[in-house]
């Protein structure tokens, strides 16, 4: 482990977590002014804001560790698709409302178990960010849980859409529990989290909610991976194009 640079690894980890948060936050923000009704529009925008806030905290910390004068904005706006390290599930297009809610459910349950572990991190900044995020995630999960029940056990059309969303997202959930050598070493050092250990509890809770919603838990017969090494679906390119355009066209602009 002598060649393992803890500070550089922590910086990379904070960047990855920031990427997860900014990409999902951006996807959720696409519902702003497009929600099915006013309250839901506001709720999705609020959840988006929570994620973008997390991204800012993770990036600010990564920038501080980098110590080269870069800011959170450099991380969000000047890195290309191959430099982004978010897990693929976060970048998939928002789809219909059922798709957005199923993704939120899968991610919210994951965060319900992941964040309390990160809150125990030996790195006090990561722990502090996680402690804030845990409370928000409780609210997020209650909402995605309620929507899953209402739509899964709703009309035939809503049930079908939920099941279809579930089938098309399920193969992207496996990556949530992967860890490369960097993440494993950080977990061993008490800074990161052993994600793989979270899958049984995640699966149990997700299965219970899906069953209650009369939905079928999909089979584990396919998996897509690559986000943590920078191999993305084409969707991230389109998202970054939208998100980064202004900053790239008018560097450092303010209003």
């Amino acid at each position: 482990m002598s060649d393992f640079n803890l500070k550089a690894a922590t910086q990379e980890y904070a960047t990855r977590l920031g990427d997860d948060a900014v990409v999902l936050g951006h996807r959720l923000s696409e519902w702003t002014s497009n929600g099915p009704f006013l309250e839901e529009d506001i709720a999705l925008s609020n959840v988006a804001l929570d994620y973008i806030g997390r991204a800012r905290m993770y990036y600010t910390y990564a920038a501080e560790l980098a110590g080269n004068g870069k800011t959170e904005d450099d991380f969000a706006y000047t890195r290309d698709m191959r430099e982004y390290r978010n897990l693929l599930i976060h970048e998939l297009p928002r789809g219909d409302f059922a798709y957005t809610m199923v993704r939120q459910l899968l991610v919210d349950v994951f965060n319900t178990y992941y964040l309390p572990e990160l809150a125990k991190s030996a790195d006090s900044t990561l722990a502090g960010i996680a402690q804030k995020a845990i409370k928000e995630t409780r609210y997020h999960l209650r909402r995605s849980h309620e929507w899953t029940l209402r739509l899964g056990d709703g009309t035939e059309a809503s049930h079908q859409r939920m099941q279809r969303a579930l089938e098309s997202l399920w193969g992207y959930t496996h990556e949530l529990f992967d860890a490369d050598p960097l993440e494993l070493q950080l977990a061993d050092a008490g800074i990161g989290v052993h994600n793989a250990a979270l899958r049984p509890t995640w699966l149990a809770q997700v299965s219970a909610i899906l069953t209650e919603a009369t939905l079928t838990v999909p089979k584990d017969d396919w998996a897509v991976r690559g986000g943590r090494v920078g191999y993305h679906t084409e969707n991230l390119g389109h998202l970054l194009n939208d998100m980064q355009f202004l900053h790239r066209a008018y560097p450092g602009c303010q209003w």
Partner: protein
Amino acid sequence: MVTKSIPVLPFAWYERAQRRKQSALTPIWEVLDQVKDPEIPVLSIWDLGVLCDLQAIDGKYVVSITPTYSGCPAMETIRADIAAALEAAQLQPYEIVTRLSPAWTTDWLSPQGREQLQAYGIAPPAGGGCAHAQGLTPEAGIECPHCSSSNTRRISEFGSTACKALFQCQDCQEPFDYFKHF
């Protein structure tokens, strides 16, 4: 106007109050009291709990603040307002630092802050109670800030800002914001 019973003060608030009381910087705390939450302008950042601490370190005023929610868009404005208040009072040099831990909680709202919320038409967070065991918003029963009725229902868990939920009073029919327990 019905007089409301005052809830038992959370220990977290008591700790905060002690920290301020034992500080020798009373006039500077008072300058900072002029800084209000931009979204609820009756509430000072102290009463809201965003202002954590004030210290004089090596001849410099160090102001510690903490965000309410991760995505709280008011933090930039609050920083600028603190800077403006200190500069107007010629209190320099200063530094404004952001603290993430311990995480902000509605237990840090001051008793005065709770009253101000109420008077502003926002129901203050309901403390304790089994409905709040998980820190979530109940579906009903939050006291209406207009007529004090408890015959109210939740319309949406997410209101006009991240820190508020939307309720409606079944008696006076007025919709109102509820400052979520967090």
